[in-house]
């Protein structure tokens, strides 16, 4: 009774704080486990939550099974990006990449396996890592973020092999052209750059904002999302979401989307995109026709 009474005040505070936290929470990243049964999600408070997809999708799912089975504090800042290898979960946010063993996470042992920090030049502010990209053939992890560079890390040794410089502002997103070992990166500076991994050189640059048809100056020039399908690329952000033909570096289709897009992906010959401030997932054909919209 006494203890309960003493806890009464902090409890009230805690509840309010938790409610406020949830109110202002943003989920930046997610990753499915190698086995496909679990989903890891990272939010702006640096927490990673593991959900059991199999439990949540089963017919006997309860309210309880839709709650995270494990939540742990991974980073000081927001968890901007996560990828999964066949054993590890890699997360990155405030300038560091951390590795967690899936097996251990599922056993609720939330101890990081290792952490690596790319060599940064500035010390005043630790640059964030906005995107992670796995290159399975090379067993490489490519990190990109606030310091405007792409860092390549050898997953075997954990050493940073090289850095690709070229962006003038921080990098938002990365995409891998699987056929040829090339990586696309889109940044705040409004450019999409194509890098050759073998030579570690910039191959091509597409400055999206300079094209009239897709430029939206009031939204800024930043490229927020990027997807590629060998010859084709879709990118969006400040400029409108546009389908590009990479070889010719010409925008072929501008999708009629008003708000800045946050995510885009190819599915066969469809373009799927999700807007940041919208409840809809719009599905387009290559030709720019909106086929239909998925809505919450």
């Amino acid at each position, binding site marked *: 009774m006494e203890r309960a009474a003493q806890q009464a005040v902090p409890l009230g505070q805690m509840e309010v704080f938790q*409610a406020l936290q949830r109110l202002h929470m943003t989920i930046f990243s997610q990753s499915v486990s190698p086995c496909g049964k679990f989903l890891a999600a990272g939010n702006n408070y640096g927490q990673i939550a593991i959900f059991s997809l199999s439990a949540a999708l089963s017919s006997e799912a309860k309210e309880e099974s839709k709650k995270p089975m494990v939540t742990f504090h991974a980073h000081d800042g927001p968890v901007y990006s996560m990828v999964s290898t066949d054993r590890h979960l890699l997360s990155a946010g405030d300038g560091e990449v951390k590795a967690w063993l899936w097996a251990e996470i599922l056993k609720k042992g939330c101890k990081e396996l290792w952490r690596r920090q790319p060599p940064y030049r500035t010390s005043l502010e630790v640059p964030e890592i906005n995107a992670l990209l796995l290159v399975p053939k090379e067993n490489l992890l490519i990190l990109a973020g606030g310091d405007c560079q792409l860092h390549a890390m050898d997953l075997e040794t954990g050493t940073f092999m090289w850095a690709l410089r070229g962006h003038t502002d921080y990098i938002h997103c990365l995409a891998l052209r699987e056929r040829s070992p090339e990586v696309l990166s889109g940044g705040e500076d409004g450019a999409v750059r194509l890098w050759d991994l073998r030579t570690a050189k910039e191959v091509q640059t597409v400055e999206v904002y300079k094209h009239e048809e897709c430029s939206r100056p009031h939204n800024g020039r930043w490229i927020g999302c990027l997807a590629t399908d060998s010859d084709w690329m879709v990118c969006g952000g400040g400029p409108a979401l546009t389908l590009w033909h990479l070889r010719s570096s010409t925008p072929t289709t501008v999708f009629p989307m008003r708000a800045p897009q946050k995510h885009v992906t190819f599915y066969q010959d469809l373009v799927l995109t999700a807007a940041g401030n919208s409840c809809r997932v719009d599905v387009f054909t290559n030709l720019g026709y909106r086929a239909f919209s998925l809505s919450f």
Partner: protein
Amino acid sequence: MPRLAERSEGDGTFPLCPTLFGITSPIGSSDLTGGAGLGSPLSGYGDSHSERFCFLRGAAGPLLPQRSVTWGTVGWERTSLEVRHKTGAEQKGMELHEAQAEMVEGDGKGKGDDGEKVSLQPRALSICLKLLGGLFLSDYDKRFYSKDNEGSWFRSLFVHKVDPRKDAHSTLLSKKETSNLYKIQFHNVKPECLDAYNSLTEAVLPKLHLDEDYPCSLVGNWNTWYGEQDQAVHLWRFSGGYPALMDCMNKLKSNKEYLEFRKERSQMLLSRRNQLLLEFSFWNEPQPRAGPNIYELRTYKLKPGTMIEWGNNWARAIKYRQENQEAVGGFFSQIGELYVVHHLWAYKDLQSREETRNAAWRKRGWDENVYYTESSKKRKPKVIRSDGAPAEGKRTRSDTEQEGKYYSEEAEVDLRDPGRDYELYKYTCQELQRLMAEIQDLKSRGGKDAAVEIEDRRIQSCVHFMTLKKLNRLAHIRLKKGRDQTHEAKQKVDAYHLQLQNLLYEVMHLQKEITKCLEFKSKHEEIDLVSLEEFYKEAPPDISKAEVTMGDPHQQTLARLDWELEQRKRLAEKYRECLSNKEKILKEIEVKKEYLSSLQPRLNSIMQASLPVQEYLFMPFDQAHKQYETARHLPPPLYVLFVQATAYGQACAHRKSSQPPRQDKMLSVAIEGSVDEAKALFKPPEDSQDDESDSDAEEEQTTKRRRPTLGVQLDDKRKEMLKRHPLSVLLDLKCKDDSVLHLTFYYLMNLNIMTVKAKVTTATELITPISAGDLLSPDSVLSCLYPGDHGKKTPNPANQYQFDKVGILTLRDYVLDLGHPYLWVQKLGGLHFPKEQPQHTVITDHSLSASHMETTMKLLKTRVQSRLALHKQFASLEHGIVPVTSDCHYLFPAKVVSRLVKWVTIAHEDYMELHFTKDVVEAGLAGDTNLYYMALVERGTAKLQAAVVLNPGYSSIPPIFQLCLNWKGEKTNNNDDNIRAMESEVNVCCKELCGPRPGHQLLTNQLQRLCVLLDVYLETESHDDSVEGPKEFPQEKMCLRLFRGPSRIKPFKYNHPQGFFSHR
């Protein structure tokens, strides 16, 4: 026995040796005494008589005529009692049959048929005596009746009455009262001393007899022959009566020789007995006679009053016994055993006695007299029956019988053979016929001889008639006897039957007794004894006696019972001790109590005296005491609150012991209200409730009839239900800035909850801002002191039922009047209500109150302070000034361009309707207990609306801001991540904004931060190249980067010392 006598009669001679060869002692048996008849007119002489026959054996030879005594030892004695039938053929043809004891005199003087008359007791004794010496009869006095009373037998038939005499019996009977007195002595001698005794007496007694000086003469000395053995009988005669006796006695006393004699004699004696006798007047005086003789002393014990009768009869009977001069003397007792008669007879020998006595029976009159002296005892026929009767033919029977004869006939019947009687009857009848025939013959013939012959025949036939009559009588008697015998047998059988029944009954009784004995249960079986092992273990060996009791269960049980008794005794002893102890202790307690009660007045006076000292020392003990007195009338919850609050106040005061305790006592407790009312309430606590319930029932019944007054009644009942206890506890909580929170606690008696009313007073007058209206209102100042405890609902689940009864929906409507029933108030009062169960198990609990006191007090203080702080801030905010205190300046850059332009309070409903507050409402953070405000921050054309939720728990729970920016379109957290980030910056990162403890400046800082954020937002907004002209808001803030992360968040974080903004 009679046969024996008869045979001995025929024996002729008897051996001359003192041999006892027979005795009969018919004591108590009428069978042997003989002589009794049925229906005797003189039967009054009956049963109680006894007869005593004594055979005295006479002294040797003729006695000396003149005081000469011949001492002889010749002769022998024989005792016999004869009962025989005598037939005395008289002229009248009467036969008298009597049983008779006969004495045979040894002298053989012929037979004297002596009709001895025995009017006597059933006990008669005959003793045969051997005469040892003494004066004895020599000449026979013939003056006795020698002549038969030959009077007609009719006289004997009818006259046998003895005239009653009026004189004293002894004078009538004795010859002369003064002439002779006899003393008879019976000495029972030790058998071995008999000879010595005889020689001794022979030596001494004759001297006395011969001595002239002594007027006594020895009639005779005898030894008994038959009868009581080893006995000597002395008969003395005192000539001159009693004077002679006395004279003789006196002389003997001085006679040394005699005294010696007596001494010597006494060693030989077993016992002595004597009697003084007088002689019958009609009897001979004993005279010396020639011997040798045997003497028979017959002693009769008579019924009192029959002595005269006896004498008269014997006076007539004695004449029949004079023939052989066998009568010696007749005496009756005068002193000694009374109603005793002694007859002394002398015979030559026993044979002559027999003959003499038989002869007497043959005389007419003897038997008659004997009969009259006989008791009226029935005689047994078998005794009477005898074959020794004379020939019947000699008997003549008369038809006219007197009763005596009738009864003789009765006896006779037994002796006669009925067959022979029948023969006799037939013979008599034939004779009669013959005689009649002869008479007829004679008469018919006639003749002179005829008359004589006829007369003779007539006489003969008369005799025959008599015989017939006799036979007729006998037949009747036989019939009667047969009946009697049957009856007797039947009675015997009955007696046996009765005896059998008695025996059976006795058997049954005995069986019952046996059963009872078998069923007997001892009491000890019910006693619960200690077990056997325990007994042997504990009992001392002198009780347990193991060697004895081990084998013997009876002894064992006894021993165990002993042990039980012993133990019980001990326990009883102990019990008594304990009782006395208790008494003692009680007394001690009494004494101590007295002492204590005497202490009270003294203590009171001391208290009185100490009052000024208390005042002086600022230690108001007395006042506190008074308060405590009052507190006793508080209801339990208030009392708990009072006690705990007082305790807490004192504890706090002591904590700051360095300061004067009385000065800033931060918690003061007082009691308000009327004590009297409380007392009155306390006395009849149930009456009001009863009334209520009664009226309840009544009301339910009469609802329909009295509808108009229903509302009034309900109101009354509501009031009654919500009634407060007249006493309340006043708590003053002083804060550091001298503002005071006044809390008044009430107790709602019927609801069993506590309520509180609060009031805040500040040290300085406050300018009340419009928006701060609710901050210090009593209604809301204590709201949500604990989360969710808004004090609008009753905490007692049971109350809801009570409310339903009187139609109260919630307590909310009455809260303003009653005060708020906050949960913490209940806890302070120690009332604990379960959350779920509708039944309340309410116990006022000190520990509950105590555990909450400190926390609650702290919360209360914080609440007041925060409210006061808010009050102040609001005052500034209303004027558009964000009152950032100096110690919070580091949180913000020096230059803040955005300005707060408006701070107003808005209603909860208005807040809910705002479009940008949806998220907060959905998150459940916008309860109706909160306060709501709207702030407007402006910079240039940009207008930022901020809807603020102020939790009552400020500042521990931060205010929540929701933003809406009107600048180039409406931007909210929905469509602009940065707005969302700004909200997050204000709401979530509020901890850095709290400022110095206790963080009351939070709201101000949040508002200031909002201004800064707006500045950053506006300044960092990317310039639209397409728009002409300079940027509206040039970037003045130092930023490391403008955007960061996928959501392109602006650098909202201010780094204090460097003054630049960075991302979080």
